[in-house]
């Protein structure tokens, strides 16, 4: 069928074309954002385009951004794989009259008009650390299984975790940080290595949505459930089995669909030239959303703690 | 024109005929390699197949052995028609082939190589190593090889032994027709003699043998019938006794042979290259060698005598450990080819395919690759115009048969390939030219041409060292022949020395060897050719 005869391959009705480029397609996290975005486009009257690369690669992301600029979208929201490499192309976008935004991950030195943030690094690291420390009575050695070695947001969370642990839990200590890439099998094997290397290990943190279930699985497979506590940034569905048998003490995330929803809402605002208020009412389901003008940042809210009781409330 | 003759001979005894091929045609892109060849082999005969390079000999046997499918024509063995292009059908029919190049697998042992494709099995599935080794041991002994070699990796064998092993492979199975495509090219006379004895013994068993060789002297000893191919056609099939070498050569080339007698005055003593006390651990020692301006010096020795090593040392490929080499009045250290080339030494390597040609590249490329400094500006940018001029010049001067300088060398016949490699060594008219087996696998016509080129180079003042296992070649070319034995010089002979002298010096003077049948054949042929 013809594609450039109006809708331009987007879903939703008329209104501004809001395009979102995730870091990578096909992971539940971004697919959930896609779902929220679609819903918002329908509710708020916008066109939603979701287009992501097959690998988490800044170059591939740039190509997709270019094809979206060629499509003359009105708003371009990106979750950059490499925050530093986005500014040039976002500047191009701005020059062509497109409103650049970032969502999920920021590109701080760019011309983006707003950053839709899910939670602050502080908030996330606090939630992670507190969840784990509750299980270990605030003391003991723990280790982190992170993913991409250069992932900006993960690294900033780790930095905050170190700081927060040192301040709040002086008897606890981060003994090692390893990087498993976006590979669950590798996360499992590295978590086991960590348990072997530190027989007195008390906890493990999986820093991203593949390593959070990974560390839990490692503990379960090693038969250390109950002896070693785990937590991590994980999606409800993938964490559910581990939450149920106790190999994960709880996961930290945010309402990802709401994040997608908020992205569309923010896109519509900037495309219509409406300024953000200090506190914004977006929809009935979303809590009041704060805006920080000095950082040009919208904050979805506090992170969400996922336990076995609320895991079923989410379908991603 | 010769069909009549062919059909005549083929009707001699159909009953004893093992293999019959009729009307075989084969075309390669642009080349009609065979144009309707009729050919047959009787039980218990050696049928020699001769012809110039590119006449189609290898193509014919490839079709017979199923390595290639003919465009037209048939091959029957024992009354059964063979499936074209099916090696297994040919093998099953009892056709065993030794191809021009040894076809061994370096990582497999000799025993495995010999039984490859038709392994002896134990319990139906697994290879029966013991039985294979036992059978191989006997086979190797028959070819004059040590049975211990059965378990040696083929890659660890020297080329000549590899060739013998691939011959042994042909004998390993029930063979009815044995095809040998230039088996002797890289063998020494002794090894050839052994081979002939084995051929005789299988003949006695009723095996038919197809024997291809450019050494016409061998045919005298081994062949019963001779078929001459020219440009893909059979020009004659006759009993060997009805043909003289001279007639054969004339049938091959299609014209009368000219008088070929070299008489050169011995050049004056004017040393261009002088080697003193040259030695390399494990291969040769105490070699003194002088090459004079305008002189062709032969270097002769049996396998292991170190003559090839001396040649390679003079070109800096495998440098000598001890001794001095003086070229053009200056002492040189030949640590690599670069040093040798600077000193004005050029070399034609023995193994054309491996050491000589760049098959997938053009004639121009093949010639200029050795002279990049000369054919470039400041040694950096290729001077393509001059490159072409030089290549085209050689194409004409040494009569390389090719459409043009851009033709790929891999598409040329062996003799023409050899001329291309020779051209490379001639470009800068070297002061010293080292030739290793310059006419190996080259037909009589091209051989004469190459000899003329070498002699004219000497006439122009170059010193030439010819390492050759072909005594007739040395007799014709060399003003002097140096003989080596077991890594040491073992005598020097002036032009006109008999082959028996050279051979006995090379083989060891203590107990005089009776001249072999091959030697006698050669001596007689030399006589015959020289007296028209």
């Amino acid at each position: 069928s013809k594609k450039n005869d109006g809708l331009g391959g987007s879903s939703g009705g008329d209104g501004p074309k809001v395009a979102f480029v995730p870091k990578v397609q096909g992971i539940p996290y971004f697919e959930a954002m896609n779902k929220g975005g679609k819903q918002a486009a329908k509710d708020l009257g916008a066109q939603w385009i979701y287009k992501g690369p097959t690998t988490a690669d800044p170059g591939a992301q740039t190509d997709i951004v270019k094809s979206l600029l060629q499509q003359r979208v009105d708003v371009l929201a990106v979750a950059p794989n490499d925050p530093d490499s986005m500014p040039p192309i976002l500047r191009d976008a701005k020059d062509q009259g497109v409103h650049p935004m970032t969502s999920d991950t920021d590109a701080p030195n760019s011309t983006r008009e707003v950053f839709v943030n899910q939670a602050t690094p502080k908030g996330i690291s606090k939630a992670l650390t507190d969840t784990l420390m509750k299980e270990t009575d605030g003391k003991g050695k723990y280790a982190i299984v992170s993913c991409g070695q250069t992932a900006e947001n993960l690294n900033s969370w780790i930095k905050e975790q170190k700081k927060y642990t040192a301040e709040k839990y002086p008897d606890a200590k981060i003994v090692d940080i390893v990087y498993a890439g976006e590979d669950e099998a590798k996360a499992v094997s590295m978590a086991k290595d960590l348990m072997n290397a530190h027989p007195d290990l008390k906890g493990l943190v999986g820093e991203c949505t593949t390593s959070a279930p990974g560390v839990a699985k490692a503990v379960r497979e090693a038969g250390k459930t109950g002896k070693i506590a785990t937590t991590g940034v994980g999606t409800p569905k993938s964490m559910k089995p581990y939450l149920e048998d106790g190999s994960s003490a709880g996961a930290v995330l945010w309402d990802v669909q709401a994040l997608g929803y908020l992205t569309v809402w923010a896109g519509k605002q900037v495309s219509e030239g409406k300024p953000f208020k200090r506190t914004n009412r977006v929809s009935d389901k979303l809590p009041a959303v704060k805006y920080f003008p000095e950082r040009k940042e919208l904050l979805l809210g506090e992170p969400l703690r996922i336990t076995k009781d609320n895991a079923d409330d989410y379908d991603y | 024109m010769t069909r009549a003759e062919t059909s005549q001979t083929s009707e001699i005894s159909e009953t004893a005929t093992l293999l019959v091929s009729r009307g075989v045609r084969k075309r390669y892109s642009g080349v009609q390699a065979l144009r309707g060849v009729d050919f047959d082999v009787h039980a218990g005969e050696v049928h020699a197949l001769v012809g110039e390079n590119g006449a189609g000999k290898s193509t014919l046997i490839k079709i017979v052995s199923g390595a290639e499918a003919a465009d037209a024509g048939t091959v029957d063995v024992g009354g059964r028609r063979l499936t074209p292009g099916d090696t297994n059908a040919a093998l099953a029919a009892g056709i065993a082939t030794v191809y021009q190049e040894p076809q061994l697998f370096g990582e497999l042992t000799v025993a495995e190589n010999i039984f490859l494709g038709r392994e002896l099995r134990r319990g139906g599935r697994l290879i029966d190593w013991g039985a294979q080794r036992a059978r191989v041991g006997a086979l190797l002994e028959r070819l004059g090889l040590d049975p211990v070699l059965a378990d040696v990796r083929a890659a660890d064998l020297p080329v000549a032994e590899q060739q013998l092993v691939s011959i042994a492979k042909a004998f390993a199975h029930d063979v009815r027709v044995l095809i040998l495509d230039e088996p002797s090219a890289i063998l020494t006379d002794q090894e050839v003699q052994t081979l002939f004895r084995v051929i005789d013994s299988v003949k006695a068993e009723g095996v038919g043998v197809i024997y291809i060789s450019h050494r016409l002297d061998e045919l005298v000893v081994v062949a019963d019938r001779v078929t001459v191919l020219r440009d893909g056609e059979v020009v004659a099939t006759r009993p060997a006794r009805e043909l003289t070498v001279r007639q054969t050569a004339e049938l091959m080339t299609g014209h009368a042979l000219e008088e070929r007698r070299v008489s050169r005055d011995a050049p004056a003593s004017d040393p261009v290259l002088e080697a003193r006390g040259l030695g390399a651990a494990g291969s040769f020692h105490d070699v003194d060698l002088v090459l004079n301006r305008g002189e062709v010096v032969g270097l002769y020795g049996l396998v292991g005598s170190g003559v090839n090593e001396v040649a390679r040392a003079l070109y800096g490929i495998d440098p000598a450990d001890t001794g001095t080499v003086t070229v053009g009045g200056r002492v040189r250290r030949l640590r690599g080819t670069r040093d040798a080339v600077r000193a004005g030494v050029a070399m034609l390597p023995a193994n054309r395919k491996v050491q000589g040609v760049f098959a997938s590249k053009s004639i121009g490329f093949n010639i200029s690759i050795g002279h990049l400094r000369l054919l470039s500006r400041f040694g950096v940018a290729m001077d393509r115009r001059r490159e072409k001029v030089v290549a085209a010049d050689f194409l004409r001067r040494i009569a390389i048969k090719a459409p043009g300088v851009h033709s790929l060398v891999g598409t040329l016949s062996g003799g023409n390939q050899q001329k291309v490699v020779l051209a490379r060594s001639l470009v800068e008219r070297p002061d010293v030219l080292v030739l290793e087996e310059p006419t190996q696998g080259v037909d009589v016509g091209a051989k004469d041409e190459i000899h003329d080129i070498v002699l004219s180079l000497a006439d122009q003042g170059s010193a030439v060292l010819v390492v050759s296992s072909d005594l007739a070649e040395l007799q014709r070319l060399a003003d002097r022949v140096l003989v080596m034995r077991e890594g040491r010089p073992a005598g020097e002979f002036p032009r006109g020395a008999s082959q028996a002298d050279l051979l006995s010096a090379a083989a060891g003077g203590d107990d005089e060897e009776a001249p072999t049948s091959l030697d006698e054949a050669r001596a007689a042929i030399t006589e015959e050719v020289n007296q028209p």
Partner: protein
Amino acid sequence: MTTSTHGTPAEETGTGTGTGPEQGPGQGDLKDAPGRTSPGGRLRRALTLLLTERVVLLAALLVVLLVWMKVLDTGGYLLAPYDLPYLASALETMVPLCILGLAELLVMVSGRGGIDLSVGAMVSLTGMAFGYTVSEWGWSPLLAVPATLAAGALLGAVNGFLVARLGFPALIATLATYYAYSSISLVASGNRPVSTAPVRDLHSMTSRVSLPGLPDVPMQVFTFLLPCAVLVWLLVDRTTFGRKLYGVGTNDVAARFADVPVASVRLRAFTLSGLLSAVVAVVTVGQFASARPDAGTVGNGMALPAITIAVLGGVAITGGIGRVGGVVVAALLVAWLNAGILLAFEGSEGSRVQLLALGVLLVCSALLNSVTARRLGGLR
């Protein structure tokens, strides 16, 4: 006389003294195509050339792609116009791919299983070196660029030393250095990209240039890609080094007997591969305005795409065969095909279909060449 039905005898004696017009290298198989001068023969020749010569086939495919995309575009089947400005902007992606393809060309042509898996890691590591010299040490780019190139050449020389002097198989040597270089790059930078103001200013190196009558083209096409392509072409086609390289790749024993310094030629091929990787590092740092320690290894890395481009461009893994034109056309074809696919599919489908298209392109173009070469004749 023979009863041949295959043309005249003169044609059949193919190795006779032909005096036909000179033919370019690689066209030897055409020397006896009948009816050389007739119009029909010329057409046949053109067709043969198209089907047996990879470069010609790729160029034809490129034309087909552009026409087809234009047709889809005018028919309204694309999400956005497939126009010149878009094609020009797609060149940005093509530049690093093409330059690394050329690096692989040099190494693969040098023969004996030559291949360089470490190009991506060298891009990462030299990119970090570039970033550090510019940002931490405050070097001017005029100084930092040559220093980076030198660093790249050094890294490449390590590969070359392992392969040419010590006799490591290229696959193993460059696999080892791929691991080592990417690790060093991460450790030395503490996993942090360098994106300070001086590095961000480097983006001006890769801004767009306006040409009269043409769309804006990324500057690196003129400042980096064209010089690299032309220099590599001159190097392999017009210099003595090129001759030696193809000689060594075709038959290294014969090369040794022809007085070609085999090891040194191979060493230089790997060194040049490192040098070209450093060029890509400079381009990438400029383009993304940041030096990333995993710039060349993230995702699938840059090495596999570069090898894919080289192979698609007709470079033989067995050595001695490959042309600059093939690599450049292959890179263009892939870049523009990918760009077109993104406009042809909604949502994320496009980036998946890119995989399918590349795979099919690779296999089918090679298959077409292989089958027709067998039909129509050729050396192999």
